[in-house]
Structure formats: structure tokens, C-alpha cells
């Protein structure tokens, strides 16, 4: 082939080292061209199928085309039959995967349900992926392993992709959050000895634990305390403790309570060391918690793999939404390979029929729910809280960061493809403890709080 190359063109490589066929500058370019070619072939195949269906006899088709001309025929048929849509629909299911063996990290908590259950229940395999779900010891480790590309995608707390992207707590690396894992599903658990001190005003001097500094747990606990007039930095102490250590610390009386992901709260009840004071849905019903996240590099360099992975997770999320499937999921994710918890603990979390630690059985099917849509307003709220508690210094463009990190557009399209109903507006307004949040006025919202660190 090299005989046909222009040796005076600086883009041309005369030595070997291009792609496998020799016609492209790099293997990546070769693969792109191949994918385009495959797409063109697919389109032709769809057109062929439509024409065969319209004109069962080839003689008739040829006469028709001769009479009106190919271009007119195509236009005429397109008005009758949505050819473009048919091609789209056909392409969706194919698209060559750039990589099929993936490694996805998770923290063993029920928030990760869609990521985990997609493995035993076969959702990854359904989209042609061979995914290894790897249990990870803590949020900082999962962040470092994801940054180090050891994981292709990872389960993170929804503030983490924002923090990574703006460089809070680590060097800034463009990160994305294509889907929310779960909504609600957290709780404030207190040590049993505090069962008569249910009013937050009596909590001065308490030692609380949250899983990570950049977590919804931290922001929700701070919000809840501050709304009750307790300054989260001065009146109580809040430290980050890995979830598995929380129950052990509560038992050893090192902490008075925690706002933690499940199954930690239910486990504290199961082991008789604490009681569930409040579900996080009572602070903000429908709040996001954990997220499915990937680097922007992964999303742009492997678009098909990313879409397949996201579709597998969205599909799993859709399954997890249905209350009747929750028992099956609990049994699938409780074993040692995944959460490593007694089945009943996981089942109580997922079904919402649970023991509260004070002798009552509570029935709240909304205790945890799964809604993958990454509303941009969620991101803006999280950023306002980062700002409020001094994790972000200086001015930021709330809406721009939210749009960059929370990939609402992709989620809308892919949710439709797996048969889910995406919301019409990627920005929604909501209430947190009765206080309305207007995503268009983030700075005014930050300034409206009496207790803040700005």
C-alpha cells in the first residue's frame, strides 16, 4: 500500500506502525472507520429489507424506480415508513464494543444494588459485557483505583464525581456521572442508650460518623442538624468512618450515632446496638445518594462500551424499582461475594418492612428506591452544600459544572431505549425539610442559611 502514499504529506507514515490494514494512521482511526462502514452496511440492509417488503416482486420494484427515480422513491418511502428511525433502532442493538472485559468497583452497601445485581442476574451479559464487580475497601480507595484506571467504572457517592471534576480533595480530572444509583435509602442511627433523646436540640456534644466528607450523608446530616439549630462544626463532631467500622464503633461507644448507608443502619438494629432515628427520606424525599460514575475519557474513548454498560445498569435499575422483585434481589446480593450480610438485613432494607430497633415494625416501601435519572438540580444542590460548608472556595458556575458532570442527555436517550420513562426536564425543583430549592438561584440559596462557613 505504501507505494500509493504521498511521501510529501506530513500526515502519512511511511513506516509500519499504523493500523492493521495499513490504510489508516492509527488502530483507533481504523476502528472508527470500520464502525462507520459497518453502520453504512447496516443502513443498506434495513433499506433493502423495507424495499423487499414493499415490492415482493423485483420486476415491479425496478419498474417503479425507473419511472420515478431513486431519490424520489427514497423520499416517498421515507414519508410512508420511518426509515431513519428503523435504521436507528437497528443500530442500537449492534455497535461494536471497544472492550468487553470490564472491571467495576463497588462498596458493599445496598446503594450499589443495580451495579451488583446486574452481575448475578445477568444484565451485563445481556449487553455482551463480561464485567467483574470488585468489592473495594473505602471511598478514598475506590476513587484512587478509578483514577488509576484499575476500574473502568465505579460506584461512587454522587458528590464525588463533582469533587473530582472541580479538584476538591484531589487533583481535578474530568469525571462524569451518567446515572444515579438509588434515591433515599439512608438513615440516622443512634446508640440505644439515646432512645429517649430524640430531639436534635439535645444532641450537643454528640460524636457522629458519616462515610466520607464528600457524601450526601455528610451534607444531609449537617443540613438536618443546622435546621434544628445545632452547628455541625461547633456543637457536635462529625468524622468520616468507613461503613463497616460504624457498627463496631457504635457498639464500642466511640460514637453516638451516624448517618449511614444501608445495610449499616439495619445491621446496627440486627446486632442490638442501635435504633433507626430517622430515614433520610424524611429529610429530603427522593434525594440521590450513590452514583454510577466513569471518567470522561472512558465515555468519549469507548462510547459503545459505555452505552452498553450504562444500559445494563439502567435495565437493572428498572428491575430494582419494582417492589415485587426486591426479595429476589436481596437474596442475590446478600452472599459473601457481594454484600456479605444476613439476607434478612438486606431484605428489610429493600422491602422497607423493617425492625426499627425499639421494638416496632415499620412499613415504608419508599425506604429505598431506584431512579437513575441524574437531575442537574441535584448536582447544583450538592455544589451549594459544598460551598456552604467551605469545601469549595471562591466562585463556581453551578449550572455549567452540573451539566458537565451529570450526563442527563445520555441518560434520557438510553432510558428510552431500555423502556424507561425519562423525565422531560433535566432540572427539577424540590424541597429539603420544607425549604424550597430553586436551582436557578444557587448563590442566594447558600446565603439564605444562618449556619454556614462562607
Amino acid at each position, binding site marked *: 500500500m505504501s507505494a500509493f502514499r504521498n511521501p510529501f504529506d506530513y500526515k502519512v507514515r511511511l513506516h509500519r506502525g499504523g493500523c492493521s490494514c495499513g490504510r489508516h494512521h492509527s488502530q483507533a482511526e481504523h476502528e472508527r472507520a470500520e464502525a462507520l462502514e459497518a453502520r453504512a452496511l447496516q443502513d443498506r440492509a434495513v433499506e433493502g429489507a423495507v424495499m423487499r417488503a414493499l415490492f415482493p416482486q423485483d420486476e415491479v420494484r425496478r419498474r417503479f424506480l425507473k419511472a420515478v427515480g431513486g431519490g424520489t422513491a427514497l423520499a416517498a418511502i421515507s414519508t410512508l415508513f420511518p426509515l431513519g428511525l428503523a435504521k436507528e433502532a437497528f443500530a442500537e442493538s449492534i455497535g461494536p464494543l471497544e472492550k468487553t472485559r470490564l472491571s467495576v468497583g463497588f462498596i*458493599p452497601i445496598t446503594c450499589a444494588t443495580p451495579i451488583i445485581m446486574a452481575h448475578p442476574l445477568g444484565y451485563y451479559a445481556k449487553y455482551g459485557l463480561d464485567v*467483574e*464487580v*470488585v*468489592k*473495594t*475497601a473505602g471511598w478514598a*480507595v475506590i476513587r*484512587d*483505583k478509578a*483514577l*488509576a*484506571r*484499575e476500574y473502568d467504572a465505579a460506584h461512587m457517592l454522587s458528590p464525588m464525581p463533582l469533587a473530582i471534576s472541580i479538584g476538591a480533595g484531589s487533583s481535578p480530572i474530568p469525571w462524569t456521572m451518567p446515572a444515579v444509583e438509588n434515591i433515599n435509602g439512608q438513615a440516622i442511627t443512634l446508640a440505644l442508650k439515646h432512645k429517649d433523646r430524640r430531639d436534635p436540640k439535645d444532641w450537643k456534644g454528640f460524636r457522629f460518623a458519616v462515610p466520607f466528607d464528600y457524601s450526601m450523608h455528610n451534607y444531609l446530616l449537617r443540613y438536618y442538624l443546622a435546621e434544628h439549630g445545632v452547628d455541625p462544626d461547633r456543637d457536635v463532631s462529625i468524622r468520616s468512618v468507613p*461503613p*463497616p*467500622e460504624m*457498627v*463496631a464503633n457504635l*457498639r464500642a461507644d466511640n460514637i453516638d450515632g451516624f448517618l449511614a448507608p444501608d445495610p449499616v443502619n439495619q*445491621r446496627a*438494629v*440486627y*446486632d*442490638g*446496638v442501635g435504633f433507626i432515628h430517622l430515614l433520610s427520606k424524611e429529610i429530603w424525599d427522593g434525594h440521590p445518594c450513590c452514583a454510577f460514575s466513569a471518567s470522561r475519557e472512558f465515555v468519549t474513548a469507548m462510547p459503545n462500551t459505555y452505552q452498553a454498560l450504562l444500559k445494563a445498569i439502567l435495565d437493572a435499575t428498572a428491575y430494582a424499582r419494582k417492589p415485587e422483585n426486591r426479595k429476589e434481589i436481596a437474596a442475590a446480593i446478600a*452472599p*459473601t*461475594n*457481594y454484600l*456479605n*450480610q*444476613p439476607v*434478612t438485613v438486606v431484605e*428489610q432494607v429493600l422491602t422497607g418492612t*423493617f*425492625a426499627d*430497633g425499639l*421494638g*416496632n*415494625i415499620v412499613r415504608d416501601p419508599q425506604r429505598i428506591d431506584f431512579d437513575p435519572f441524574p437531575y442537574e438540580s441535584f448536582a447544583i444542590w450538592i455544589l451549594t452544600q459544598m460551598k456552604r460548608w467551605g469545601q469549595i472556595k471562591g466562585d463556581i458556575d453551578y449550572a455549567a459544572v452540573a451539566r458537565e458532570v451529570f450526563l442527563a442527555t445520555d441518560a434520557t436517550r438510553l432510558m428510552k431505549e431500555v423502556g424507561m420513562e425519562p423525565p422531560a426536564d433535566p432540572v427539577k425543583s424540590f424541597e429539603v425539610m420544607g425549604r424550597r430549592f430553586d436551582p436557578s438561584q444557587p448563590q442566594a440559596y447558600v446565603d439564605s442559611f444562618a449556619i454556614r462557613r462562607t
Partner: protein
Amino acid sequence: MAGNRPWLAPLLSLVFLAVFVGLWHLATRTTAGEVQVDPEYAALVGAAAATGGKSAMPGPGDVAAKLWEHITDPFYDRGTNDKGIGIQLGHSIARVLLGFGLAALVAIPLGFVIGMSPLVYRALDPFIQILKPISPLAWMPLALYTIKDSNVSAVFVIFICSLWPMLINTAFGVASVRRDWLNVARTLEVSRLRTAFQVILPAAAPTIMTGMRISVGIAWLVIVAAEMLVGGTGIGYFVWNEWNNLSIANIISAILFIGLVGMLLDTTLARLGRAVTYKE
């Protein structure tokens, strides 16, 4: 006295063990619960919580049952995050041997150079003194950040913690070879290389072996903590995973296995050490 009755010491060991297990059994004995709760509620919580108490420490019986489970099926593989204790120990031992081997490759030649040249010794001493007391785990975040691979980072931590005892002992052993022997070698006009291998090495070998023995002990101590941090595989990960499940019986079994393997590593190096000792 003990020489006459060699069975006395093992017997005493058994008595100690029996006393310990007995006390343990007494301390963890579960008392029958009195508080009665609604049976539907009781089904949702653990046995201890249902009777109004906290979940208890497991007794010797529970631990023995778990231990038997691990011994009879040490090599199962039920997915990425659930492997038998034999496989986990294998991963840990492999990491330790790799890190330790690399450290030996670096520390022994470097120790030789340092020990043979008082100038190099004095020049490198401040660095060694500063680097030696750093807890190996303090290197972990730095290693993860720069190496960008958790497995290699764990090996690196083992490498760095086994380096210092070997380096210092080798240098010390080489530096304190008896002057007379070196002088004899010089009078016989033995080449420097031959002196190093045939006079200094055998003379310093016992000290070097002591350094290696200390190193392997430290490496085995550190691997458990390192694996608890990075996760994935290894006995440290196993302990962390069972802690996640608050399964104390599993943790105690793992502790016993960690002790056994540590003892094996130590005895092996002690044997090797005895092979190179000499009488002056």
C-alpha cells in the same frame, strides 16, 4: 530437671491452652434472654437483639466450627470477592515473598557497599535514619498515587518495609568482619572480589540472615494491614470482608492462620540462619 522430663513443657502448654479456652467459654456463655418481643419482630433481628441484648462474642465452639469449615474447604472460588482462605493466604504469601525478594536483591548488595566503605556509610546514614522509622503503611497513599496499581503498591510497601532491617544488618555485618581476617586475605594477595565472596560474605552471613529474619517478620505483619487497605485478595482482605459482616468467628480463624503462617516463615529463616552460623 526439664531435661529429665521432656514431656513437661508440652503438657504445660496444653494446660495453658485448656485454661484459656475454658475462660473464653465462660466469658462468652450466652445467658437465656428474658425480654420477650413480638415474634414477627424477633424474626427481623439477630438472636441477641431479640432478647434485648447486643450480639455477643463467639465462643470457642463457634470458632472451632468455622475453623473446621475453612480447613475442610480452603480452596473454593465463588467469584471475585469470595475465595477460600487457602487462596487468600496464597496471595498474601506470594506478595510477601515478591516484595521481600526484591528488597533482598537491593538491600544485600547495597549493604555490602555501605559496609565496606566508611565514607558511603556516613553519606547514606542520614537518609537511612530518616527513612527507617517511617511506618510502611504511610507509603501506601503515595504508592497508590504514583504507581497507580493497587497490587504493585502492596508489593512496594512490603519491599520498603523489608528493606531497612536487611540493609542495616548487612552493612553492620560487613563492617564488623574481624580485621585480622581481612589482613590475612590481604597478605595472601586475594583479589577484592574474592575477599568479598570468600571472606566477608561467610563472615557476615549470620548477621545478614538475622536481618532477613526480622524483615520477613515485619513483612508478614504489614501485608495484613496493607491488604485491608487495598482490598481485592489476600488474608488482609479476608479479615476486612468478614469485619464488614461483623463475623468475629471468621476473623478469629483468620488470625490463627496468620499466626501459623508467620511462624512457618520465621522458622524457615531461622533454619537457614543456623545453616550459615559458625563458631569462632
